[in-house]
C-alpha cells in the first residue's frame, strides 16, 4: 500500500510539473503582455520599462528559475491584473466550479445510468436507437451554442429561468443542464456498452436461473461489475468539466467560476495568474484520478494496491 501511495504521488508530481512547464513556455511564446496592460499609444520607453519591471526581458530559463524557486516556497507571485496573490485569486472561484460540475455530473448520472441500462436490456429496440442517437447528439452539440439556445427558449421565451448570474436554485438549472449534456451522452454510451458485456456473462444466466429478481440481477450484480468502467468515465468527464467545458458555460451564463477567471487571465496575459490557475486545476484532476483509483475495491474486492 505504501509503495502504491509513493508511486501515485510521484506520478502526480510529474503530471503537475509537466503541465506547469508546458503552460509556462506556451504563455511566454504568445507575445508580450505589456502591450495589453498599457494603453495602445504608450511610448517605447514605457513598454521597455514595464517589460523590465515584470522580469520579462530576462531569458525564458531565468524566468523559469524565478518561478520555480517561488513555487517551491508556495509563492506563485502576484497577479499583474488584480494586484493580489495569484494563488488567492485562483482559489477563490474554485468551489463554485466544483459545485457546478458536481451538480452537472449528478444530473448526467441520474439520466445516463437508467437509459444505459434500458438500452442494454433491449438492444436494437426503438428505445435503444433513440438513446444512441440522443447521446450522440449530446456529444456532438457545441455546449456554447446549446447554452445560448436554452437561454433563448427557457429564459426569453418561456421566462422559466433567469438568463445568467447567481442566486437561488433557479440560477443553477440552465447552466448545469447545459454542462451535463455532453457527459450524459458519453456516460450513457459507456453504461450501455459495459452492461451489454456484463449481461452476456455466465453469472447472469446463473443468477436468473436461481430465480433472483431481475432488478437485483441488473443492479446488484451486473451494474456493480460494470461499475469500474462507469466510474472511470464519470470521473474523467468530471475532470473535463472542471478543466474544460466549464469555461464555455461560465462565460455564456456569466458565472463566477474558475473557467471565467482563466478566460480573463488569458485575455489579460496575466502570467502569474494563468500559472496559478493551471496548477490548481492540475491538482484537482490528479486528486480526482486518485479518488477514482481508490474506489475500485468497492466494485471488485479482488483489486489490491501495490
Amino acid at each position, binding site marked *: 500500500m505504501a509503495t502504491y501511495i509513493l508511486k501515485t504521488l510521484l506520478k502526480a508530481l510529474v503530471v503537475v510539473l509537466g503541465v506547469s512547464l508546458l503552460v509556462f513556455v506556451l504563455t511566454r511564446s504568445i507575445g508580450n503582455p505589456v502591450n495589453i496592460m498599457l*494603453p495602445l499609444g504608450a511610448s517605447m520607453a514605457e513598454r521597455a520599462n514595464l517589460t523590465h519591471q515584470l522580469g520579462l526581458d530576462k531569458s525564458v530559463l531565468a524566468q523559469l528559475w524565478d518561478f520555480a524557486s517561488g513555487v517551491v516556497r508556495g509563492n506563485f507571485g502576484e497577479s499583474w491584473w488584480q494586484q493580489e496573490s495569484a494563488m488567492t485569486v485562483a482559489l477563490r472561484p474554485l468551489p463554485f466550479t466544483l459545485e457546478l460540475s458536481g451538480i452537472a455530473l449528478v444530473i448526467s448520472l441520474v439520466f445516463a445510468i437508467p437509459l444505459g441500462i434500458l438500452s442494454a436490456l433491449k438492444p436494437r429496440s426503438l428505445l435503444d436507437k433513440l438513446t444512441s442517437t440522443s447521446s450522440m447528439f449530446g456529444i456532438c452539440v457545441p455546449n456554447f451554442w446549446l447554452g445560448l439556445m436554452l437561454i433563448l427558449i427557457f429564459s426569453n421565451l418561456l421566462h422559466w429561468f433567469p438568463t445568467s448570474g447567481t442566486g437561488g436554485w433557479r440560477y443553477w438549472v440552465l447552466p448545469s443542464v447545459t454542462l451535463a449534456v455532453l457527459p450524459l451522452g458519453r456516460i450513457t454510451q459507456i453504461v450501455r456498452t459495459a452492461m451489454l458485456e456484463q449481461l452476456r456473462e455466465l453469472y447472469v444466466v446463473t443468477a436468473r436461473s436461481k430465480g433472483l429478481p431481475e432488478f437485483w440481477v441488473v443492479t446488484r450484480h451486473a451494474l456493480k461489475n460494470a461499475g469500474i468502467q462507469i466510474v472511470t468515465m464519470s470521473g474523467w468527464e468530471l475532470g473535463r468539466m472542471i478543466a474544460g467545458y466549464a469555461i464555455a458555460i461560465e462565460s455564456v451564463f456569466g458565472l463566477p467560476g474558475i473557467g471565467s477567471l482563466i478566460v480573463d487571465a488569458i485575455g489579460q496575459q496575466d502570467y502569474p495568474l494563468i500559472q496559478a490557475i493551471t496548477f490548481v486545476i492540475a491538482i484537482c484532476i490528479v486528486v480526482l484520478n486518485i479518488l477514482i483509483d481508490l474506489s475500485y475495491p468497492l466494485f471488485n474486492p479482488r483489486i489490491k494496491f501495490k
Partner: protein
Amino acid sequence: MNKKSLSIFLFTLVVSTSLVLSGCGTAAPNTPNPTAAKKDTISIAIPSEPSTMDVQFADDGNMRAVADNVTESLMTLDGKTMKVIPELATEISRIDNTTWDVKLRPDVTFQNGNPFTADDVVYSIKRIIDPNFKSNIAGFFATFKDAQKVGDLEVHIITSGPDPSMPTRLTMLNILNQKEMIATPDKIKTAISGTGPYKIASWAKGQSIVLERNDNYWGPKPSIKTVKYRFIEEDATRAAALKNGEIDFATNMLPEYVSTLPQVQTAEGLEFSLIRMNAVSGVMKDQKIRQAASYAINWDAISKSLYSGYASIAPGQVFKPSYIGFNKNLKAYPFDLAKAKQLLAESGYKGETITFVGEQGRWLKDGEQEQAIAQMLRDAGFKVDVKILAFSQWLGVLFPQDPTTTPPDMIFTFHSNDIYDADRSYSTYVLTTGSASSYPKTLDAQIIAARTELDTVKRQQMYEAIGQTLYDNPAWINGINIKDIDGMGKDVVYQPREDMKLMVSEMSFK
C-alpha cells in the same frame, strides 16, 4: 420483478425526473415587478469584472464604468460638448511656461467624511507620477514634474516643459483621499473613497458591485439611489438579460441586436479605424499611390454592411469636432474608383505586391473590415497580400521595438485619442520619433512646435495646417468610427457620452 417491470420502472424514473425538473420551472422567476412608484435602483451589466478599484493604476474600462461614479478629477469633460470644464478645481491659470495655478473647490468632502484639501491633490499627483508606483497610465502624465501646496485650497502644478494639454490631462487624474491612502493603502484594491455622487456599498467578488447615492455630494443630487453592476461576458447573454428585464442597462451591444432590444441609445465612439501607409520606403512612398488608396475605399458600404449603419465616416482626419486641432475644412475622401484607378496609372504603379498587415478579434468586425478594404483596393488595381497576425505580433509590427525595421506597406489599426488632442495622434503616427510612425521628417518641426505652443489660437492654426498637409500627402487612410451602442429598458432615460464614460448621475427613470 421481471424484465418487463424493470424496464417500466426505469422508464418511469427517467420520465418523472424530467417532469419534476421542468415542472419546477413553471412558476415565474425573479423578474422585477413594475411598481407604481418610480424605481430608484438600476441594474447595469458590463462585460467583465473590474480588476481593481485603483483608478490610478490600471487602464481598465470595466473599472472605469464603476469608479467614474465614485471618484472625480480636478477637471472633467462636459458630457455634450466634450470641452474641458472644472470639476474639483474652480479655476486654472498658467503662471509661467511650466507652472500652473489651480484653485480648488471649497466645501467638498470625501465619502469617508474627510474634507477635500490641497493635500489630497498633491498626494494624488505625486502618487501617479511616482516611478515606484508603476502606474500603467503614467504615460499620460509624463510631462508632470511636481505638485506643490500653496494654500488649503490652492496648488501649483509644475510641468517639465511647456505643456498646453495639461488641463486635459487632469481629466484623467482621479483625486484620492490622502489620509485614507496612508492609513489603509490596500483598501483601494476593493473600495475607493472619492468625492463623487456615488459610494461603493459592497463588492461581492465574481458577482456584483453595489453603489449607493452619496447624500453629501457637492453637486446636483442624482435621481437614482442604488446601482447594481453585474458582469456578463457574452454579448448575447447580456442582451438576453436585458430583454428579460433582469437588468435595466447593458453596455457594448452589437448592431445586430438593436432591433430586438427595448431601447437603444448610441454615441459616437472614441476609436477611429485607420490604415497606416509606409510613406518612407517601398511602393507606398509615392504620394499619388497613397491618394489613390484613399479614393478606393467605399466606407459607406462598410458601415452599412458590417455595422448596420452604426458607424460614421471619419471627416478627413481621425478627430471628432470637439478635439483640439480639428480642421473643420477637411472632408472625407469621396469614394471614387475611377479617380483611384487614374491616380494609380499616373503614378506608374506596375502591379507590385502591397503587404497589408492586420489583426483579428480585438475590435468589432476588424477582420471583416480589413478583408473588405483589401478587396476594394484590389478592385482599384492594387495587388494586395493580406497578413492577419495574432494581436501581440501585430502590435509588435505597429509599435516595433527596433525603430530601424522596415514598416509594412499598410497596417490596419483602431486609434483612440484619450486626451482629445491632435498631438496624441500626430506624435505617435507622424513624428519620425513616434512609436508607430512610417512618415518622412517633413512635418517633424511643425508637430514639435505645436506640441509646446501655449497660445491656444496659434496652436489650433498649427494643427489645422498639419491636418491639411496630411490630407494631401496622407500618412494613413482615414476610416470609420464605430458607434457605441447601449441597450436599456424602456423606462430608462440616458444619452451615452462621447467619452464613453458611464455616468449614473446622468441617468433617470421615466
